[in-house]
């Protein structure tokens, strides 16, 4: 189906875009990569009167190191997460997640900021952001604020972004010595949404895990931090016993609902299998 009619404007700045949005009383939508909003409009799930294209806004682009953080402009495309050397080194979970996101042509257009702002509970980048303890910079008409990823994702398709606000950049803390990451998912077909997926970041110093950050996706309404599994690993060596303890603890971390495809217990089982696999294959980062 074709989209209903709308007006289009290409904003030149974040303030310009927000002013246009405010002028429409909520009847506008921001256009980033367009790979979620365009299908939604074709299906008539959304029918805004104005589409505000963010493609020309320089403040939303670029990847750079800033005071211990990697700043990734929200309009950075998925393909850049796969090819940008700064992202590979300083935000390695985005680089590890990117090959799992849809298909090559979609990765050429889809944006990191668009994926995070859309907050599909089955998508990869939100869980990677949580596991890396990223902070999301949101612009409003009165200024900007940074929200930790744990607080950013609120519910299915719901984030800390208020109507009219714009996700401007993603900040990822620089890796520390001994940091390792792992990412994997189980999907029925390459590029499909995962049945379950996991993003892991661990710091191991002298064979002892001093920091553990684990986020799962497709197991609830938003990326889910595995608090119990993290606690089961911290202060221990990464070995078969600690991995088994983390897998056991995962049952209390997750509360997926039954769905028409399979029961909740199967999802928890798959999550345990996947977590064990990822922990056993952690990769060191620079």
């Amino acid at each position: 189906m074709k989209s209903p009619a709308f007006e289009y404007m290409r904003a030149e700045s974040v303030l310009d875009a927000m002013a246009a949005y405010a002028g429409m009383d909520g009847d506008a939508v921001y256009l980033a990569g367009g790979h979620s909003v365009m299908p939604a409009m074709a299906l008539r799930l959304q029918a805004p009167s104005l589409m505000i294209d963010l493609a020309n806004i320089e403040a939303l682009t670029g990847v750079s190191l800033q005071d211990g953080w990697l700043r990734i402009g929200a309009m950075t495309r998925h393909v850049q997460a796969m090819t940008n050397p700064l992202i590979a080194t300083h935000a390695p979970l985005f680089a590890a997640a990117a090959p799992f996101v849809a298909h090559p042509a979609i990765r050429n257009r889809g944006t990191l900021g668009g994926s995070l702002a859309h907050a599909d509970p089955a998508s990869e980048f939100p869980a990677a952001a949580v596991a890396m303890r990223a902070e999301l910079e949101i612009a409003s008409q009165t200024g900007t604020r940074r929200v930790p990823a744990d607080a950013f994702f609120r519910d299915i398709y719901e984030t800390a972004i208020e109507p009219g606000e714009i996700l401007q950049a993603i900040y990822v803390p620089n890796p520390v010595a001994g940091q390792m990451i792992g990412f994997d998912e189980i999907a029925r077909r390459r590029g499909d949404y995962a049945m379950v997926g996991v993003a892991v970041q661990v710091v191991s110093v002298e064979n002892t895990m001093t920091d553990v950050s684990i986020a799962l996706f497709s197991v609830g309404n938003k990326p889910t931090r595995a608090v119990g599994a993290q606690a089961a690993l911290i202060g221990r060596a990464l070995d078969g016993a600690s991995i088994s303890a983390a897998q056991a603890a995962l049952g209390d971390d997750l509360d997926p609902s039954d769905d028409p495809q399979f029961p909740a217990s199967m999802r928890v089982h798959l999550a345990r299998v996947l977590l064990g696999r990822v922990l056993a294959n952690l990769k060191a980062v620079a």
Partner: protein
Amino acid sequence: MKTDINFTVNGEAVREAIEPRTSLADVLRDNLSLTGTHLGCEMGACGACLVLLDGAPVHACLVLAVQVAGQKIETIEGLNNSGLVADLQEQFHDRNALQCGFCTSGMLMSAHALLSQNSMPSRPEIRDALSGNYCRCTGYEAIVDAISATAERRSKIVEGVQ
């Protein structure tokens, strides 16, 4: 309200008056009669509408024509006329890597992009590159064969030159 948009299609400058809701695929097909770009699902799932936008394959059904102002588009007609995919087309033909042919333009776009980046892809890499292209005649095996054979032939030509 229609807006005048300038962009380049297959090397030619184009100026079209376009409504914002019109997709790039519709402009290529309806305004420019470039009907080699096919429309299947119109929501980014099937890959029949792939075109090159500034060199990278994208879904022409998910891009608004007004978004591509000032940019370069290459359609299957452009790739065909340039001869850049002649050997791929020949292998598709020889190996029956198409039945109805509806998906073929998109398959060639994906194959061309893959071989431009990776001159000797493995079969799993070829399958990964085609994961966003549906062939409902279930012809994938022959398509993978055709792409793999093209890569091998190109590598032999390069070796011969050296």
